[in-house]
Each structure stands twice: as C-alpha cells, then as structure tokens.
C-alpha cells in the first residue's frame, strides 16, 4: 500500500506554519484559495560589480493547489499581490514558488 503523506497538518493556518493565500488569474479572478508557507528572506542581487539587498520571497504550497496555475497567475497574501516568477515541484506533493 502506497504511503500517503498527510500534508494538511503542515499547511494549517492555526496549528501549522501556513497563511491564507488567494490564487488569481492575471485579470484578477479568483482561481482558488490555498494555504501556503511564506518565507521572505533578504538576499543579494549582483549586477556587474554592484549588489542590491532585496527581499526574494517564496512560498511552499501543496502541488495540487497549483493545478492549472502558470506564470501569468498572481498570488495574494495578506493583501499583497505577487507575480509568480518560477516554480519547483519537489515530487513529494509540495512545491516551491518564487514570487515577486
């Protein structure tokens, strides 16, 4: 019998680490609500010999919540609307999505 990971406990907004997010089309229509784990580190961007410290946020999300979602979609978290920059599915049922 295949092992089915229970991801819900990680993506719980009250007992887990998640926050509520709304996935939207580029036109602003809601695709679905999803719980995501937001990380917002400040990292260094290099351009020629200059560097810029800038937040490079990403979310962890259940891969099933990304069905039909591509780079044209937006993700709203705490009233901030982010673009989807790139996506990495880790194969265990969760994905990392870099947002700006």
């Amino acid at each position, binding site marked *: 019998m295949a092992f089915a990971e229970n991801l819900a406990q990680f993506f719980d907004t009250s007992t887990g680490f998640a926050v509520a997010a709304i996935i939207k089309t580029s036109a602003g229509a809601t695709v679905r609500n999803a719980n995501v784990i937001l990380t917002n580190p400040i990292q*260094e*961007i290099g*351009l*020629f*010999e*200059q*560097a*810029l*410290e*800038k937040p*490079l946020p990403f979310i962890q999300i259940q891969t099933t919540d990304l069905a039909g979602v591509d780079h044209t979609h937006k993700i709203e978290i705490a009233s901030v609307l982010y*673009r989807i*920059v*790139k996506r990495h599915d880790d194969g265990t049922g969760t994905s990392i999505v*870099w947002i*700006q």
Partner: protein
Amino acid sequence: MSTKRQSLFDAVLTRAATITIANGYATNIGSHVKEWQTTPLEPADLDALCVSDANENTIVGQEGENAGLYRRELEITFDAVLAENGQNAQTARKAIGDLIKMIGVDPTWGSLARRTLPISDQVMLDDSGTRIGGVRVKVKIIYSRKPWEA
C-alpha cells in the same frame, strides 16, 4: 591639494548628479550618485548611479605632446542599478541615453580634459525575476599631465 585626477572625478560626480527628469533627462539616476560603492545597495537607493575610476593609462609621445607632458587616459565606469517597470530593459536603455547626453554637455569637464571618448556600454537584468536592471557605461577621459605632476 587636489590632484588633476581628483578634480576630474569631482567634475564627473557633480555633472552626474544633474541627471534628473526635472533637468530634462529620461531617468533620475542622478538622484543617488555613489562614489566607489563597494557595499550592497538597498531598495531605497534605487535608481542608483555608482561611479568609479579604477584605471588610468599613460601614453608617452603621442598627439604632439612633448616629453614633458604625457597623455593620460582616465577610465570612468558608470554602473546604474535600476528598477524596471516590466520584464524589459527600457529604463536601462534610457539610463545609457542619459549618460551619453550628460557627458555630451561638456566632454572637457570644464576644460580640465581634452575630450572624453566612449569605450562600451552594457545592459544586464537580474535573473531572479525582480525586474532589477543594470547598466555599465565605460568612457575614458583624455587629458595631459607632466610625468610626475599629480
């Protein structure tokens, strides 16, 4: 005592600071001019223009200089770090145009130099999707100075 190189660099910084939309340019990179910026910028610094003068070459015996007056080529590097409005390099191209226009106001920098010659200009975009662009413009300022005169 200010050296000729310091006077030239001061003139470059002063002129670079005039690059604002209010002064008829297409960008405001002159609002945040930084000399030899070696530590990371912050988002509040954008759009920024970082200026440095790493190299100066000496050429002996050309263009009519006698043995007592050598031709100097002071390389100035302008690095602009810019926030783009979309997935494009439009602000970067405007910044290049502004730098060319700024130098063209007076390529002798108030008669401190003979002229200023272009070397290269480059555009670069951050690949992490931040829509931050970079511009590097290199020029060389041609002036004369005695062999051991500062």
